[in-house]
């Protein structure tokens, strides 16, 4: 079957079995290996992407349900080689260690910032509750999301 979707703003046509995981389409067919596979069963959040703006685990989404929809992966965050505000905040606060959870954390963080919620610690913790960091570096990750959210709310 052939499916048309938008990936990071670009129209893409994919020829794949309908039950192929969005994760496999991104990594194997489209070469977007920024999205990681951790557990493959919706526990760890390493494969988090945005589907029409909502954070989802790409390992649990069959490609047949992505037809006509828009996907944003970690590769879609930086513009022309310039990191976006959240990526920059991760560098500033030391929010990245080994890196396996980082793409998923960034996408969950993006969804939180886009929601416009006040960047309070409890709310951020809930927003990334589906993302496991094996280095247990949560504090710096929360700091990074709070910093980027604060900057978004107070432009300049």
């Amino acid at each position: 079957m052939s499916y048309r979707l938008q990936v990071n703003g670009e129209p893409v046509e994919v020829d794949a079995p309908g039950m192929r995981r969005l994760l496999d389409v991104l990594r194997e067919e489209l070469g977007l290996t920024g999205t990681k596979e951790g557990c493959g069963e919706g526990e760890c959040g390493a494969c988090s992407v945005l589907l029409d703006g909502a954070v989802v685990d790409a390992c649990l989404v069959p490609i047949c349900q992505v037809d006509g929809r828009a996907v944003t992966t970690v590769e879609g965050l930086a513009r022309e080689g310039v990191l976006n505000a959240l990526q920059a905040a991760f560098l500033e606060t030391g929010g990245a260690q080994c890196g396996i959870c980082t793409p998923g954390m960034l996408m969950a963080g993006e969804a939180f910032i886009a929601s416009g919620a006040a960047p309070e610690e409890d709310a951020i913790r809930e927003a990334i509750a589906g993302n496991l960091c094996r280095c247990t570096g949560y504090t710096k990750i929360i700091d990074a999301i709070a910093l980027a959210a604060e900057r978004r709310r107070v432009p300049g």
Partner: protein
Amino acid sequence: MPNAVEPPVASPSSLQDAYALLAKGGYRPIAGGTDLMVQLTGEIGEPPERVLDISRLDRLRGIERNAGWLVIGALTTYTELRRSPLIAELLPALAEAAATIGAAQIQQRGTLGGNIANASPAGDTLPILLATDARIVVGSGRQERTIPATEFWIGYRTTARADDELVLRVEVPLVSDRRVRFRKIGTRRAQAISKVVMALSWSADGRAGAWRNVRLALGSVAERPIRAWETEAILEGARPDEETAERAVAALAAEIHPIDDVRSTAEYRRAVATRVLHRLIREEGSR
């Protein structure tokens, strides 16, 4: 590792087409996929032979108030339940339950209909449906029929839904003075499958302070989500005081049959179920 199994999938856009495919047999419905996608690896039982993607059946969406009923479409996601002003007004315990399921990624995809059809004994919304006298509407090319929640989960991961039927919606009767409380005990606040999940509903009998129409339902304490009929009988007509709490937990301990498994032990589950009920009753009594 990409999944070894990629069964053929059909994505009908009308209920009639969906029913026609289901009538051919061998199809397993997929909505949010949070349960089914994991089964494709074949590590948990047999993967489905064919898959029916019901996500385009827009008639299965929406939350509305219809006369004395709250009607919730099967494709309603946990995120939608959490954000719905109608749920917040009419059945906030259901939003509370939805908030305990997985985390954002699961809540964006998982559906109420999926929780119902997947029929896990640990399904977190199911005790609420049992405790509020909800009914589940299923449909096929043959007919639509309405099944009381108390008759829906009939055994371990077994429901009254036939293979050619889809869960269409849930109807919850609206009772003006009904209170509903929800409690879930898991290893952590997010991403936890419950060790014990409980919903308690009652109507307060004004002056006397006694409880009427008491319903107590639990998950993860039996092979299916259950009503605790014996405990309800103790609570019916009683006031929520210390003595009532003691009698109720004795009944509950005798009536539930939890098991030891990877998430907990029978002993812990029995202890925590009774403790949670005791605390709920005392909290209400001290209001």
